[in-house]
């Protein structure tokens, strides 16, 4: 098994950055997800780790060994492609055996190990089929088997579920997660589906426009986004972001709408705004609770029912964007009705509008 370290790794195509210099250490046995919108450089990062793409500069270490300029075949890494890339002229069994043949493993050993992985993935019955005759899910299982059979030190997966139907995707997601838990191999997994990222990862690397925006556990990325991009990108809908004016411990959003800044944040907010100025307030839909004595007042713009709750879309007026708030499913909120809501002070976040970065609270001052 392996740790993977990227040191100032960057990739340029011509003069355009596909990946800006990035640092990342992936621990042994960790499941790391690269998450980001299309074209942000996830695949390129993965291909650089595998050696299929040369780095423009920087270093890649595998278990402390510098592999930056090693051929892909010398890195002992397995790659699972979005479109499976099963060799169409070989049967499923031959596909799985293919990587072992490169290492000139003796024939009965090959048979034994192929049978083992086929059994592990419960696809023994497919052994003699050609890829073209199989469903997408089964093809991906065989691709996984082919990656597993070599017992590589790390797995790289580029949107392995992207080409599957929604119903298959859930099943396969669980299978991959289970597989990871049972063999505990270092895995780097690329996706642009944040639900997948949240569900599967130990840590998420959020990327956008060739830049790493944040590296953190799913909870960190969700509750403490490092900047406005992550706040908007993670969650559906993303974090509510309101621009307000800060002065003397209170943020106002036009009219009489005011929000006191929790004590823990006071120092940081004072410093950034230099005592008073623009500030961005962020909160998740579930941080708000609709109640008669709430400090913020808004009208109902629309509402929709979800499984266990209803989502209210509220208009705060004064050029504020629509905010999304969770509310009880039992209540009925007619359109244009006036509601009041308050925010859980532990779940409110503040961002500097100039740098777009999140502010850091002063720990435990309030207590």
């Amino acid at each position, binding site marked *: 098994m392996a740790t993977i370290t990227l040191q100032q790794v960057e990739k340029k195509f011509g003069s355009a950055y596909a990946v800006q210099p990035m640092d990342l250490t992936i621990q042994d046995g960790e499941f790391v997800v690269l998450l980001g919108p299309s074209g942000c450089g996830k695949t390129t990062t993965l291909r650089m780790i595998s*050696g*299929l793409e040369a780095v423009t500069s920087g270093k890649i270490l595998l278990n402390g060994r510098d592999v930056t300029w090693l051929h892909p*075949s010398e890195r002992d890494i397995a790659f699972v492609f979005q479109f499976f890339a099963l060799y*169409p002229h070989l049967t499923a069994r031959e596909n799985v055996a293919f990587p072992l043949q*490169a290492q000139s493993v003796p024939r009965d050993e090959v048979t034994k190990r192929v049978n083992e992985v086929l059994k592990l993935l419960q696809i023994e019955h497919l052994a003699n089929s050609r*890829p073209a005759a199989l469903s997408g899910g089964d093809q991906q299982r065989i691709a996984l088997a082919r990656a597993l059979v070599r017992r590589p030190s790390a797995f790289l997966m580029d949107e392995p579920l992207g080409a599957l139907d929604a119903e298959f995707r859930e099943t396969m997601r669980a299978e991959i997660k289970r597989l990871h838990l049972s063999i505990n191999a270092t895995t780097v997994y690329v996706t642009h589906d944040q639900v997948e990222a949240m569900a599967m990862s130990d840590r998420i690397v959020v990327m956008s426009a060739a830049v790493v925006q944040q590296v953190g556990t799913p909870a960190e990325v969700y509750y403490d986004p490092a900047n406005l991009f992550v706040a908007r990108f993670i969650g559906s809908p993303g974090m509510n972001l309101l621009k307000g004016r800060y002065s003397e411990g209170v943020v106002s959003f036009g009219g009489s709408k005011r929000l006191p800044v929790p004590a823990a944040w006071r120092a940081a907010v004072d410093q950034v705004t230099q005592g008073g100025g623009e500030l961005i307030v962020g909160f998740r839909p579930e941080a708000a609770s609709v109640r008669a004595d709430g400090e913020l007042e808004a009208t109902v713009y629309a509402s929709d029912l979800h499984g266990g709750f209803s989502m209210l879309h509220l208009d705060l007026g004064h050029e504020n964007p629509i905010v999304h708030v969770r509310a009880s499913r039992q209540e009925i909120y007619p359109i244009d009705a006036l509601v009041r809501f308050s925010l859980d002070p532990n779940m409110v976040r503040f961002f500097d509008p100039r740098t777009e970065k999140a502010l850091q609270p002063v720990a435990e001052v309030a207590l």
Partner: protein
Amino acid sequence: MTATTPRPTFEQSGPRLPVVESIRVDRVHPRARIAGSVRATLAIILSLISLIPVFWIVLTAFKTPTDVTAIPPKLIFEPSLTGFVSLLSDMRLLSQAEQEERSQQPDLSWVDQIALQIGRAINGPSQYARQLGNSVIIAGTSTLLSVVLGLLSAYAFSRFNIPAKGDLLFFILSTRMLPPVVVTIPIFLMYRSIGLHDTHFGLIMLYTVFNLSFSVWLLKGFIDEIPREYEEAALVDGYTRLQTFFRIVIPQARTGIAATTVFCLIFAWNEYAFALMLTTQNARTAPPSIPSILGSGGIEWNTIAAGALLFLIPVVIVTFALRQHLLRGVTFGAVRK
């Protein structure tokens, strides 16, 4: 009482619209089946019509000279090898007396007997057998070279970042933009002064150069269609670039390789003008020799037909051997796009 809709029976559950083309249909609508057989019949009729000349060549090759010129043409006759014997041997005419004398000899071989039927005796083997051999060597070697070199450069053009790739490809194609006949005289002069005239190597090189542009372009198209992921998967699975080329690219490109082989072979096999200009004796191939059969005393149609038939056979064999690769395999499409 509740009215339940009856479950559709197997008979009713087939495709509603006629399925004309599909790979996985076990029940085909009758109308589609009729359309299919009509098309098959038409295809058979058309191919029979286009095979008539070939059929006629085969018939003529097995006729005696008298049967060939019989009017009305004979469809049913006693087959004879006269044509082949006079094609492959050098003969002289016998006088009446000599014929009498030879027919008394008990130890005549079967070829001599056939020659005697048309009043001739065999001096020795003709040039044609040798020329056919030359054709096999020259066309075979140049085809092999065109396909191997073409495959390597097509792979490079398809997969690597080559400086001025577009210009190079255009340049390669531009070698085909001039009608070849235009350059026969300069090439003749060049070949003569550097000693390539009437050599096997000279023709092999010429045919290879002519075919290369074609094979590079054709094979590049086929290789472009093979998704790179296959090779990348093999690379991370521990194979070198060259192993990947042999184990992944070549099996995937075999349709293209088969098609290119057949086209290159047909060109090199049938080439007439250069072979006529650049060879005299040693390296002369079959195509310029067939018309010279015409020359020797009267038009011996059965000999010419035998020559044409022997000439057709090698290409037919190769095409036939490669036929299942020429049909696009069902294997395409295992990478979903």
